[in-house]
């Protein structure tokens, strides 16, 4: 069921990669991530997401198989592989005694950055909205600010591949929207690539060009959000917001081809359709002709979440 193919030239490759912890085995994983993608990496806790990320970063060795980052083995050719690769870990793995400026200075030294360090630090701190806190100890920053700093230390220098572990965790809605913009701009032009794990399905659905679902160390599905939804779900859901709908119109909707269920909640109607035919044009015609006021008609927002839950159910995970 896995689909290891990618769009552009490969930046990340797993070839039959296994990590055996003794009590638990992750893999074999086959994966190929191309340049210019924003990949959402989904899976329940303990499914192997972090293990895969740590393999990419050369923090752990595969038990068998290969991992290649930019064509290099991240263990034996760590510097070559991770040149232009940046990682943002989950909270709160940043030393609390450092200030953002001190942390970013250390990172620039690690990267061997040759330009004006102060200018670069100012640039990323302004980008993530932390410039006012540049000299505040990390221990005194809020959870969301630490998350911003975690992303800032990944964006500093000239990275081409961002590996992000739950990058939106702890961010307010405005912060999440701002970061989505940053990541979109990062991949613009096809040079940058983002590989991010997340439990926030809406974020992944709206941001990612490609989705990977992993469970028990195996890639279950790979494709764009809509491809994954089509592969996993044998139904689609349309939500309608309208005023003045008569019972007769609702009955007509129920009688439309492939409609299997209609649920009404105030002015909102949820229609479940067998298969993935787009019934929205016919549906809107029907509602408008009935004399009701149609406000919105769209595919349900949480289709990826439904597909994700369904995919896990099919593989024996209930919650």
């Amino acid at each position, binding site marked *: 069921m896995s689909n290891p193919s990618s769009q552009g030239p490969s930046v990340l490759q797993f070839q039959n990669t296994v990590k055996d912890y003794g009590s638990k085995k992750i893999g074999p994983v086959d994966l190929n991530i191309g340049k210019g993608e924003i990949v959402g990496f989904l899976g329940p806790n303990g499914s192997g997401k972090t293990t895969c990320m*740590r393999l990419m970063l050369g923090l*752990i*060795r595969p038990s068998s198989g290969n991992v290649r980052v930019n064509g290099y083995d991240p263990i034996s050719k*760590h510097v*070559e592989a991770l040149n232009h*690769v940046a990682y943002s*870990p989950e909270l709160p793995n*940043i*030393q609390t005694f450092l200030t953002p400026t001190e942390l970013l200075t250390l990172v620039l030294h690690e990267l*061997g950055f040759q330009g004006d360090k102060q200018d670069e630090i100012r640039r990323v701190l302004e980008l993530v909205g932390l410039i006012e806190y540049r000299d505040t100890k990390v221990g005194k920053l809020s959870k969301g600010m630490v998350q911003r700093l975690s992303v800032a230390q990944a964006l500093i220098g000239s990275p081409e591949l961002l590996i992000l572990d739950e990058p939106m965790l702890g961010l307010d809605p405005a912060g999440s929207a701002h970061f989505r913009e940053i990541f979109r701009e990062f991949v613009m032009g096809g040079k940058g690539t983002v590989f991010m794990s997340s439990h926030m399905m809406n974020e992944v659905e709206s941001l990612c060009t490609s989705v990977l679902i992993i469970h028990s160390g195996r890639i279950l599905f790979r494709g764009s959000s809509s491809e994954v939804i089509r592969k996993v779900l044998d139904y689609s859901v349309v939500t309608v917001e309208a005023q003045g709908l008569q019972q007769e119109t609702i009955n007509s909707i129920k009688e439309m081809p492939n409609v299997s269920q209609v649920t009404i909640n105030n002015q909102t109607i949820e229609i479940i359709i067998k298969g993935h035919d787009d019934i929205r044009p016919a549906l809107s015609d029907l509602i408008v002709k009935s004399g009701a006021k149609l406000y919105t008609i769209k595919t349900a927002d949480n289709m990826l979440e439904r597909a994700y839950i369904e995919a896990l159910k099919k593989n024996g995970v209930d919650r």
Partner: protein
Amino acid sequence: MESIDKMTRVDIIISFIRYEMKRAIAKRKVLALLAFTILLDTFPYYALSTATNGTGFIPLAAYPYIWVAGVFGLQPLFLNFTAILIAAGAMSEEYEQGTAELLLSKPVRRNDYFAGKFLGGFILFLIILAFNILLSVGSAFTFFGPQASLEILPGLFIVQAFSSLIFYSLAFMLGELVRRSSLAYIFSSAVFFASFIISGYLGLIFSLTGKEFYRTVQIYLPTSPANSLPVQYASPLLPQTVGIVLRFVGADNTIVPTIELSVAILLAYTLVAIGIAAGYFWYADISRRMG
């Protein structure tokens, strides 16, 4: 191009040294150790001057060498234990907090990180050692008047630093192997105190039985060269009258017979410990944050 790469690597190692020093200071261990050093290097001199005032307990001829009490008296316990306290947490605390992961996810060589951590902690130890020597001399001057033979202090500083390297390296290695700071402190301290106590018993058994085996084992325990070398280095450079001061602080008896053997044992322990730590660090997975 290669020289630029070398410069960058040196720059990276220096960054890690600075980082490690800052980290250790932030843990407040170093401040506590400095405060303890002040206590150990001032109060005993004050007490000694009060107790010996006019009693002749310490002859006047030994007064210019009373600084020896502070410099040598702290080596057997305090300095070695300080080395353990600084080194045991250098690697293990980073694993516990998950911060090693962030630093090593960058395009840096593990060797550079290892070197920076090792040297950063050791430089901090050297600062405490220098502070201890200066404070001993200052206190001795304050309570017993002008001090003599101070020209040996730079050499003595280097010898004491080298002697402490054995427990610094052992604790650093254990921190890397067990990756939990509390266990690393316990194991390192256990090695140190076991060596200290067993050495005493072996010396006693040797003096009672005269069997060379016990003496030989005692010589090769890590505390023996660590405590013998500074005395072996300084004794020929100081006058006979210093003997009474050394006796007073229990540092007059060297267990290892020659200075060369002390150096050899110290080097062997240190290099093996560094080798094991480096090998394990290079090969093993980087641990995740522990709960």
